[in-house]
């Protein structure tokens, strides 16, 4: 029995030769019994195990082994164990003093490894579905819980204004508002252009080009402006909040705060929530203006509606109500995004994977709840006739 591997290592390829003599079996191991040869060694050992038969006298001669490490030592030990049956114990011979401690070490290993059990069954799947459904309820409860905690912290700060963290709030305002302005303005500008172009393209067939101004005004001020900006903020700042709080949770920073007598809600979450609630109306307003500007530009260049006519028409088409309907939604959506992000951030467990999962679900849930809120607002405003 001989096995080799193309690239020879200094001490040569490992071999294991079996010599059967009547009632005895001698297995001579030689060469490098080391990790790089592990695949070969494993095959050699499993072949040698078959030679056992019912021999009474078995020994493994390792005197020709030039190099031995944990892999080799374990495989020799595995061979010895499988050749040992009942009263007949296989012996290891010719072990040099250098390696005896290594062999002793692996001899202590318990050979019954606990294999991970992954159950794929119908009951398991049903259980998962059940847990997911129950999890939805849990999500709603934890959101309400966080809302309550934030309001309580806000109340606490109102009573004792010195506890308010202005610097932190301003810092987060910069992050979520000021730094978001360029991208928000750019994207809403482009969306305004696209709505206007599409409107003109289709209305032209009925000779109703000018109605594009009505459509643009109502759509942007009531819906698109705030909804689009809220979705962008959920992706941009909601994910950042979750990642920040999550990694602070992972490194026990939040526990440290708590033990120093600070309320993490008051120190970390309230400034973030406040920054977001202030930022979103500002961003929604800027976004709506950029979209109207982009729409007007396209209407002029593509549809031939000159700016003066556009503004005149816009004044007739929209009222302050449209603007209010849009902007009133902004702080509520900001609160929803912030609460979802903070709940997810505090739910992060110890691993990098968990951080990723919660950041993903922060954005997904944030956007979902923003759209649900938008629907609720639509029903509300329709019923009060705004």
């Amino acid at each position, binding site marked *: 029995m001989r096995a080799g591997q193309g690239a020879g290592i200094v*001490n040569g390829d490992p071999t294991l030769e079996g010599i059967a003599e009547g009632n005895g079996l001698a297995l001579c191991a030689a060469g490098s019994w*080391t*990790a*790089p040869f*592990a*695949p070969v060694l*494993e095959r050699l050992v499993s072949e040698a195990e078959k030679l056992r038969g019912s021999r009474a006298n078995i020994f493994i001669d*390792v*005197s*020709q*082994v*030039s*190099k*031995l*490490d*944990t*892999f080799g030592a*374990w*495989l020799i030990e*595995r061979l010895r164990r499988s050749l040992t049956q009942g009263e007949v114990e296989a012996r290891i011979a*010719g*072990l*040099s003093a*250098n*390696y005896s*401690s*290594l062999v002793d*070490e*692996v001899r*202590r*290993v*318990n*050979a019954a*490894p*606990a*294999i*991970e059990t992954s159950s794929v069954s119908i009951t398991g799947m049903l259980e998962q579905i059940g847990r997911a459904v129950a999890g939805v309820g849990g999500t709603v409860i934890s959101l309400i819980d966080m809302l309550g905690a934030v309001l309580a912290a806000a109340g606490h700060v109102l009573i004792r204004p010195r506890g308010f963290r202005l610097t932190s709030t301003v810092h987060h305002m910069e992050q979520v508002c000021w730094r978001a302005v360029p991208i928000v303005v750019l994207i809403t500008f482009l969306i305004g252009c696209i709505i206007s172009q599409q409107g003109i393209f289709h209305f032209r067939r009925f000779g109703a080009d000018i109605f594009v101004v009505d459509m643009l005004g109502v759509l942007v001020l009531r819906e698109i402006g705030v909804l689009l900006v809220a979705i962008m903020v959920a992706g941009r700042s909601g994910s950042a909040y979750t990642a920040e709080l999550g990694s602070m949770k*992972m490194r026990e920073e939040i526990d440290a705060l708590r033990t120093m007598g600070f309320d993490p809600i008051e120190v970390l979450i309230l400034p973030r929530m406040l920054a977001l609630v202030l930022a979103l109306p500002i961003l929604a307003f800027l976004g709506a203006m950029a979209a109207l500007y982009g729409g007007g530009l396209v209407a002029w260049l593509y549809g031939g509606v000159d700016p003066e006519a556009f503004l005149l028409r816009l004044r007739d088409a929209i009222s302050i109500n449209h603007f209010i309907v849009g902007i009133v939604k902004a702080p509520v959506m900001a609160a929803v995004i912030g609460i979802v992000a903070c709940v997810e951030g505090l739910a992060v*467990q*110890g*691993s*990098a*994977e*968990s951080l990723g999962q919660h950041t993903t679900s922060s954005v997904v849930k944030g956007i979902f709840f923003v759209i649900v809120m938008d629907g609720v607002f639509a029903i509300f405003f329709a019923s009060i006739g705004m």
Partner: protein
Amino acid sequence: MAPPPSSSDAIIRVRDITVQFGKTRVLDGLNLDVKRGEILGFVGPSGSGKSVLTRTIIGLVPKISGSIEVFGIDLDAASDSERRGVERRWGILFQQGALFSSLTVRQNIQFPVREYLKVSQRLLDEIMLAKLGMVGLKPEVADRYPSELSGGMIKRVALARALALDPELVFLDEPTSGLDPISAGDFDELVRTLQRTLGLTVFMVTHDLDSLYTACDRIAVLGNGKIIAVGSIADMQASQHPWLRQYFHGKRARAVMS
């Protein structure tokens, strides 16, 4: 059976290494040899660049000048495959353990083996258990996640992972920091035992005087970006260098020696 290579040739040969961050020169023309089969303790004041040297040798920090040879291979001139060959022959224990947080202990230890060797799942599990046993952990911890382990267990698992491929050279970055004195003593003993059984060469950055006394064959001292002294613990105690005198004759050192 031939004895393991016992020649005193240098397994790591560092020559004229200079490392600079911005305008701060951290290592300045540093020379160091680590001999095969020894445990080298590496000490120096906090912020003197011990970790930087370790990270420079293993290639995580770029150097401005100088050369580094590991196993006789110049790491700058080495091809990608030579470099991978070297990386497979060393194991590294990072200061914080650096276990993969989304993998279990079992998967952490098996990870390097699985990537480098095509062996059966059975052998992977058996080797994993052998390594866990070697670092003094029970098989029950195999399916726990790193976040569910204590600090000492994290260090042990990280050592088991560093040893997974039976490396010839192990870098330990402050292995006993953050352990209680008993665990730290056990850890030193463990490093000693492993060095004897596996014929390891150990490069150990440490602040622990006990480790220096009980585990290390030689000690190198870093100061001002250079090695200011290399030698046995007796050489260190005899040295007249002010920092060394303070370090080895201070209150804590006297407590350890008595």
